[in-house]
């Protein structure tokens, strides 16, 4: 029954002349984080401390990193892009890779978080999206607004997806909308991720994960528990967990 259904729809789509060039490509995102806003939102701070942080740390531009997403109908790869500026000091040592496999509905994350390297494998579980009545243009694509929440990190997520790029893929941990997510924002501007460049077609250089992945292998649920415990103990010790976990 299921197979029949699949084939039927596939036939319909093939006959409609699906614009396949729209479902393979590479996106460069600007990942802009606003540490002043994030830090001043810590629960143990007094109003005076919040004001002080916003006043003295004030950085309207945020801190930018270039990220890269490669997408196909059956999978996506995501990691750091070329740095914006060549700098004569090198700080960057952390790894951050996300591979989403839509075919067998699994993901692999290889990332340095909370001072350790984790290899997380589990099945994909899309955020619960609510689609809103708002449109916006990003790089010539009309995008619709969708919102969701991350209760673990206390984040309100606002995403913009392009329905003319019909892959349920997105940057960071966002996916599962009827179109490629070209931008999203956390807690009204604590983090802004926005596409800067889209190139359709097979990417020239496909993102490869390190051959030897050294790290702690955990399942998605285990990892969630580690994060939950880390956030809790950080809040209790009045430390900023956001410095150690990808926001």
């Amino acid at each position, binding site marked *: 029954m299921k197979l029949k*259904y699949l084939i039927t729809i596939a036939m319909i789509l093939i006959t409609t002349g699906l614009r396949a060039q729209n479902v393979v490509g590479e996106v460069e995102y600007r990942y802009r984080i606003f540490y002043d806003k994030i830090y001043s939102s810590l629960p143990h701070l007094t109003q005076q401390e919040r004001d002080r942080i916003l006043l003295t740390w004030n950085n309207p531009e945020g801190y930018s990193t270039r990220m890269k997403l490669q997408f196909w109908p059956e999978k996506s790869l995501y990691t750091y892009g070329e740095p914006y500026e060549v700098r004569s000091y090198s700080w960057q040592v952390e790894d951050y890779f996300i591979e989403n496999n839509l075919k067998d509905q699994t993901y692999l994350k290889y990332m340095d978080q909370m001072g350790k390297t984790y290899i997380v494998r589990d099945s994909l579980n899309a955020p619960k999206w609510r689609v809103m009545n708002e449109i916006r243009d990003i790089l010539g694509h009309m995008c619709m607004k969708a919102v969701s929440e991350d209760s673990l990190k206390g984040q309100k997520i606002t995403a913009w997806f392009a329905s003319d790029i019909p892959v349920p893929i997105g940057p960071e941990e966002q996916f599962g909308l009827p179109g490629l997510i070209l931008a999203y924002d956390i807690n009204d501007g604590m983090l802004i991720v926005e596409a800067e460049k889209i190139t359709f077609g097979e990417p020239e250089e496909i993102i490869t994960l390190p051959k030897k992945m050294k790290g702690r292998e955990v399942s998605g649920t285990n990892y969630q528990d580690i994060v939950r415990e880390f956030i809790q103990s950080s809040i209790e010790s009045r430390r900023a967990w956001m410095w150690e976990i990808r926001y």
Partner: protein
Amino acid sequence: MKLLISYLLLAFITFASHGQSQLTIRGTVKDTTNLPLNYTSVLLLSPKDSALVAYTLTNKEGEYQFKNVDRQPLLIKATYMGYLPIQKELELPETDELEVEVIRLMPIMQELYEVVVKAAKAPLMMRGDTLEYDASKFKVPPGATLEELLRKLPGIQIDKDGNIVAQGQQVQKVTVDGRRFFGGNTKMATQNLNAESVSKLQLFDDKSEQSKLTGVDDGVKEKTLNVELKEEAKKGGFGKISAAGETDSRWSSNASYNKFDKVNQFSIIGYGNNVNQTGLSWDDLQEFRGSGAFQFGDTGDFGFNGSGGVNYISFSGGDREESFEIPFNNLSSGFSNNEAIGVNFNHLKDKKDFSSNYFYSRSDQIIESFNSRTNFLQNNSSFTSTDQSLQNNGAGHHRANLRFQNELDSTNTITIEAKGRLSTLNTSLGSLQELIRNSTEQSQMERDNRSNKWSGAFQGTAIYRHKFEKSGRIFAASISNTYSKADQDGIQKSVVDLVNSTDPNTYFRNLDQVNEALNSNNTIKSSLLYVEPIKKIFFWETFYNFSQSKSETDRKVFDMEASDTPELNPDLSRFFDNTITYNRVGSSIRYANKGSNISVGLAASNYRLNGQFSVEKASEILGRVDKNYLNLTPNLSYWKTMKGNKRINAGYSMGVTPPNIADLQPFKDISNPLYIREGNPDLQPEVTHSFNTGYNMYDPATFINFQFSLNSTFYQSQVVQNQSIDPETFVTTFTAGNVSGGQRYFSYIGFGFPIVKTKFNAYLTANPSFTKSLALINSIQTETNTLSHNLGVNLDLTPVEWLSLYAGTSYRLSKTTYEQNPSQNQDIINLSAYTNMNVKLPKDFYFDMKFNYNRFENESFGFNQEVPILNAFIYKLIGEAKKWEVRLSAYDVFKQNQTISQFAGQNFVTTGRIETLSRYFLLGVTYNMRGVEVKNRR
């Protein structure tokens, strides 16, 4: 291709869950001209929260189909590029099949999409029939009216009479935040509202007033424009004021106010007290300086420095005369009366960043101190001098700082800084010095010195940075000028009784002198830097530094004793005219990749010292200095960041410091007749080799952290003060000289770990150090070694929300050994312990207690002093918003406060003691507009 599409579809299927009574929903999407729209996204949403239930695409005929949809209330939504998305609620049928009526998408007005959504990047929001957009994305000149903004908007025209015409229809009314504005008079609204205060505009067809009143829809629609005003989120003001006093004349007060919006920050702060607080608190300083709080360290000095390639930023809080910085975190000794006031203004707009402040502080200080110094002589004998003094210092400092940074474009940045200060200082010192050789041989001297000083300085710096198109290629240039001037006059009197010496040449004699000193310095600095990247991981850095410092010292000493008219003393009066010119050119290669940084460099530096001196400015030149030092200085540094918050660093640098010109000139300074300083024209620069290494790690999951560092310095040539002590008069003459072989080692080990995670933490420290110093004492080379051990334990206990406890102790043992005179070896012990307790009591009462215990010991002198200080505070927050606080404070409950210092030098040991403000109580009130801040955790 087939495979590809089946993957795509698998994703959709996961959204359509299985269950009983599942629906199949199908329909068609067309445009307004009845043409089917293929490749259109069709979404099923839950009407209560718009949650996404399922989605699919239409086929060539504009047809879509959802299978196996759970029976639940549903919204259907269709979206297609260039069309307004449409959504409507589905009426679920009795059967399992639902044929949805044709969805017709309306194209978005071309102009609207192009101008609003594409060009202005303003999201377009649909609320039923209403279209809304973010007006703040449209640029209008400052002060523009709403009418000018409307003219910019697509689909809206303003006719010659000032009426608004939207999509061909005249706008009947304008509402502001949903309310009618000026009786709905559209022109009144558009011409009076400021465009900058508008955040969103909504255009829609509203029911007529008549139908709103009657509730009967008469079908008449009025074109309505609603204007939503901005919430001025980033605008506010806060301030606080507090005052405290006691019956016994102690008082303390401070006040501050900050006002800020998106572009301007203004703050004013002031304090006054007689409880030795001579600076702002660190928090207050940050608030005062606002966005300028962390702008420091941009000195424009390029290239590696003697400290191993890293430019350290150091800032001290004291109210020092030479400093341009605002004093903070400073507690003075003795008894003082302090006042200060400051104003800060910052303006941040676009890429322009301006900050400025002015700060005036003044203080009157009384210091009553007792100092003792024991000097060892080579024949195992020693003599001791004691000094009991009473000093009155009055100081006032005006300081102003300006900084302007402008990013002209993405490649060019210019920074301009201007700093100025103006100080007045008055000092009067009365002292009784005693020289004790043994119980029978003593001599005494009474001193009475007074001086008035005025000094001022100005510093201007300009830095230009250019980034080339090739990323990583950088050019930077800086220029700075510092000018300072000081004018001092004073009197110096000393009366000696029981003079041991009959030698008429001794300076240990009665004095009655008037002195005048006029000093000025002008320093010009300039630096250039060029960085060329090679393959993104290698950087070739070339720099050039230049500085020229011209100084003039005009010191006149007049003897008063011989006659009533002051007579110039030609032995003590000097006019100096010095120029130090510094040139350095260097280059380094840096490797920077994946957290590893290695830099190897070499620089050639040249110091040229020119000077001359005479008794007076116009008189015969007594001596000249013309020295030229050329050195090659290598530099190595390594720095690596590793996974898991670990860092390691190591480095080597060679430092060359030219001698002080004062040390080069054969001139006797007898301002303290017991300690005479003499210059040495043959002095060579100080040359050091420094090695540093460090490691630190932090595990955020376990909260364990560890730090280690070791810094060592080897002196190839060290400038030291050689001493010769007159065995008759005990007058010590210091002459600068060079020795090699001196060494210094400093290390630090810190280890922090939780005993009970989040509740109980420990931090252990140790910083052993070793210093080997060499000097000539009475022409004999002496070696002094000081080995210090310092161990510390700190415990933080925060078991419950209402209680925190901090305790710690540190123990320092300084062992000083004298190679030539082991009988004089010294063991100096400093022991300290503290506990702090913060308790939150019911009903907004708080109790804080701080206990500090210090013990100073030196066995060889039988010195043993304990200083236990207990401070306690009880306070209550008042009011619902906790804006008021009443506080009772007790300082130094045991009345034990005094400032103690101990030091063992090459051939001497000193101890000092300053009588300091002790037990007092304050009762105070604080009002804070943002609520009083309680810091019960540190």
